[in-house]
C-alpha cells in the first residue's frame, strides 16, 4: 500500500518529480562518465609511460636503483637468463645495459644515453621497434650500427648512414670510445627520451664496453600486465637477495601518485557541483513535502502513525532516486562504453602532454561495470539522504499544526 501511495504521489506532483529526476539523472551520468574518464586517462597515461621504454618489471642488481653505479650491476646475466626462462607467467624478457656518454659529430657534442639491447627480445618489451620513423630497427649481429632518437639525431645534425662518435666509460671504468653508424631513427613522442637515447646491439656493446655477461637491467613483460606486482615479487624471491625486482608501480611511483592527485582534484570539483545539486534536490523535496503538509496532517489526524508517513515519503524519494540513478547510470555507462571504443582525441593538447612526459593524444574512457555500479549506489544513497531532512521536518509537526499550516 505504501508503494502504491508513493507512486501516486510521484505522479501527482509531476513537475517536482521531473526536476528531481532530471537532476539526479544528470548527476549520476556525470559521475559515471567522469570516473570512467579519469580512470581511463590515468591508465592510458600510465600504460603508455610504462610500455614506451621502462617496462612492467625491472630486475636490477642489489642497490642499483638507489645508486646506479657500475658497482651494483648484474654481473651474471646468464644465470638470470636461465632462471627467468624457467619462471611461469613471463611473456618475454631481455637484458639492457644503460650508460651515459658524450656523442659527437664533427664539432658538435651532446650528452646522451647509450643503451645495449637484445634487439629481437626488446621488440616485445618496449615500443622501440614500433617507433621507427626512418631507416631500420636493429637486429642481432648488427655490429656498430645504432638506433637513435630523432631529437638527438637533429641535435647532432645526422641522418641514417652517418657516423657518430661516442666517448664514455666501460663497465670496468675504463675509457671507451668508438665510431657508430646510424641504422635507424625512432620517435616515441617522449621529447626528453627522443632527445637523449640511442641503442646498440648488446653483443657488440659488450666488446667495446667490457660488459660481457653483465647488465644494468632485465626487463620482464608479464603475460598478464595486471599481475605485474605479484610476478615482480615472485621473481624477486626466485632470484634471491643479490637482485631487486620492481614492478612499474615502484619504478614510476611519482607518476602513479600524480595520477592519484589528479583524481583527488577531479573528485573535489565534482564534490562541489554535487553539493549544490543535492541542495537543490533538498529544496524541491522540501517544497513537495510542505505542499501537502495539510494532507499529512489529516492523515495523522485520522490515525496514521508517523512511521507510516515516513515510510510512505521515503519510499517516494527512493523510487524517484532509483529510476533516475538507473537512467543516469545507463547514460553514463553508454558514454563510457562508446568512448572506450572511440577514444577522445586531443591533438591540440599534445604540447601539454609532452611536457608531462606523456606521449598520448587519444584517450579512451575506462568502461568498468563494477565501478559504475558503485557510483550509482553512491548517487542513490546521496539522493535519498538529501530528502531526509525535509521529510523528518514535516513529520515532526503536530497534526493540528500541520492542518492549519498555510
Amino acid at each position, binding site marked *: 500500500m505504501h508503494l502504491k501511495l508513493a507512486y501516486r504521489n510521484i505522479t501527482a506532483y509531476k513537475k517536482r518529480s521531473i526536476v528531481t529526476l532530471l537532476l539526479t539523472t544528470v548527476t549520476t551520468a556525470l559521475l559515471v562518465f567522469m570516473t570512467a574518464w579519469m580512470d581511463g586517462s590515468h591508465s592510458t597515461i600510465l600504460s603508455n609511460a610504462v610500455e614506451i621504454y621502462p617496462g612492467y618489471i625491472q630486475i636490477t642488481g642489489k642497490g642499483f636503483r638507489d645508486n646506479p653505479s657500475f658497482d651494483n650491476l648484474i654481473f651474471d646475466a646468464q644465470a638470470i637468463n636461465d632462471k627467468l626462462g624457467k619462471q611461469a607467467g613471463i611473456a618475454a624478457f631481455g637484458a639492457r645495459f644503460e650508460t651515459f656518454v658524450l656523442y659527437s659529430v664533427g664539432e658538435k657534442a651532446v650528452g646522451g644515453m647509450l643503451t645495449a639491447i637484445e634487439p629481437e627480445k626488446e621488440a616485445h618489451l618496449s615500443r622501440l621497434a614500433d617507433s621507427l620513423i626512418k631507416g631500420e630497427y636493429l637486429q642481432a649481429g648488427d655490429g656498430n650500427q645504432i638506433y637513435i632518437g630523432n631529437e638527438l639525431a637533429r641535435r647532432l645534425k645526422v641522418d641514417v648512414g652517418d657516423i657518430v662518435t661516442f666517448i664514455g666509460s666501460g663497465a670496468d671504468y675504463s675509457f671507451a670510445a668508438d665510431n657508430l653508424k646510424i641504422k635507424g631513427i625512432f620517435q616515441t613522442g617522449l621529447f626528453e627520451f627522443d632527445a637523449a637515447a640511442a641503442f646498440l646491439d648488446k653483443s657488440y656493446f659488450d666488446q667495446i664496453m667490457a660488459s660481457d655477461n653483465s647488465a644494468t637491467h632485465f626487463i620482464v613483460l608479464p603475460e598478464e600486465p595486471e599481475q605485474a606486482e605479484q610476478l615482480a615479487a615472485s621473481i624477486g624471491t626466485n632470484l634471491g637477495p643479490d637482485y631487486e625486482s620492481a614492478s612499474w608501480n615502484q619504478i614510476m611511483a611519482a607518476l602513479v601518485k600524480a595520477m592519484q592527485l589528479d583524481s583527488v582534484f577531479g573528485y573535489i570539483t565534482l564534490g562541489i557541483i554535487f553539493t549544490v545539486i543535492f541542495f537543490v534536490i533538498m529544496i524541491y523535496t*522540501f517544497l513537495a513535502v510542505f505542499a501537502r503538509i495539510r494532507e499529512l496532517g489529516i492523515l495523522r489526524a485520522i490515525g496514521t502513525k508517523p512511521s507510516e508517513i515516513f515510510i510512505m515519503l521515503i519510499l517516494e524519494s527512493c523510487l524517484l532516486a532509483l529510476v533516475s540513478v538507473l537512467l543516469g547510470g545507463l547514460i553514463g555507462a553508454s558514454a563510457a562504453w562508446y568512448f572506450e571504443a572511440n577514444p577522445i582525441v586531443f591533438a591540440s593538447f599534445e604540447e601539454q602532454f609532452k611536457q608531462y612526459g606523456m606521449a598520448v593524444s587519444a584517450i579512451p574512457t575506462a568502461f568498468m561495470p563494477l565501478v559504475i555500479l558503485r557510483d550509482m549506489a553512491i548517487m542513490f544513497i546521496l539522493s535519498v539522504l538529501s530528502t531526509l531532512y525535509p521529510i523528518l521536518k514535516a513529520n515532526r509537526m503536530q497534526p493540528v499544526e500541520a492542518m492549519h499550516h498555510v
Partner: protein
Amino acid sequence: MFSLIIKIARASLARRGLRSLLVILMIAVSLWGLLLIEGVYEGMIEQMINNAIRSDSGHLSLFARDYRSDPDLSRQVHEVSAIKAALEQDTRVRSFAERIKQDGLAATAHASRGAVIIGMDLEKEEQHGRLAEYLQKGEFSFGKKGKGIILGFKLADTLRVRIGSKIILSAQDMHAEVASAAFRVTGILKTNNMGLDERAVFIDLNKMRKMLIVPEGVSQIAVIVHEQDQLAEVQEDLHTRFPDLDILRWDELYPALMQSKVIMDGFNMVISGMIFCVAALGIFGVILVSVLERIREFGIMLAIGTRFGLIRNIILAESFFLGLIGFVFGSLIGGANLYYFKIYGLDLSAFSDAFDEFGMDAITYAVIRPSYFLTAFVAVLLATFFSVLIPLRVLKKSNPIEAINKV
C-alpha cells in the same frame, strides 16, 4: 512605493523562513565552492608560470636568431652592452639577466648525465628572479673562488650528489674542443621548472667564459617588466631596435603553460556555468511554489486595485533578496577562505612527489581577483532574474482574480 515592495517582499520571505534559508544557503555554498575552485586553480597555474618566468624565460627573452631550434654555443647575442644600455634606460623594464648556456655532460666518479650548463651572475639573478628563494639545500653562492656549482634537485638526485660533492663538467668550447673542469656542489635548487630541475647546472658566468672560451656575448638575456600589459609593447620596441635577435615572450617559450592556463580558464567557465544553472533551478523552484501558493493573495491585491507591475516587482524583489543575501554570505565565506589560502597557502605536501612530477608547488597560494566576485554577482543576478520569468507567466495565465472565487 519602493519601500512597500521591499516590505512585502521581506515579509513573505520571512514567512517561509526555513525555505528562504535553504535557498540562501544553497547560493552561498555554491558561491563558496566556485570561488575556491577559481582561486586555487588559478593560483596553481600562476605559480607554474611564475616559476618559469623567474627561473628561466623572464617575461621576455632575447636570443640570437634561430638559437631556439639549434641551441649552439656559437649562436650568441653580441651587442650586449648596447642591449644592456637600452634595457637600463627603459622604465618599463624591472630587471634583466644574462646567461650563457651550453649542453654538456655532468659526471661524478660513479654516474654521468647530460646536462645544460648555465653560466649566470648570482647577484643579478637574485634581483631578477629572486632565485635564492628556490634554494632547497646549501647556499646561494659559487664560493669564494667561483668553483661552486648549483644544480637542479632531480639532477642532484640522479647523480647522487650532496653539498660538497665533486662534479666534473665537460662541454665543447667555442673552438669545438671538449673542455672539462671540476666543481664542488654549493647549492641545490628546486624551481619546479621541470626542465631546469632535471637538467640544469649553474656555474659562475665568468668561470664559464674562461672554461668555454667565450670572451663576450651571451646565449640569453631574460627580461622582467613592471607591468605585464606593457609586454607586447616592450617586445615590439626591442624588436625594432635589435632586428637581428629572436625576442620571445614567456608564452612563446613555454607554450604548454599558456595552454594549461587556457584549459583551466575554460574548465572554470564550464564549472561556473554548471553550478549557476543548477542554483538557478533551485531558486526557480522556490519562487514558483511561493507564487502558486499565493495566487489568491495576489488575486485579492489585484481586485483591490494593485497594478500587476507592483506584484511583479514584489516577486522580483523576493528573488533578488534571496540572491543578494546568498551572494553576500557566499562571498564572505569564499573570500575569507581564499584569503586564508592566499596568505598561508593550501598545503598538499602529502602529495609532494606527485606535484614534483607535474612541476608544481606542493603549497598553492590562492589568487583573489575582484572579477571573481563581479562575475559571480552578475551570474546570481541573472539567475534570480531568469528564475522569476516562468513563475510570472504562470501567475498571469492563472488569472488570479478568478482564483479568489475558488476554494
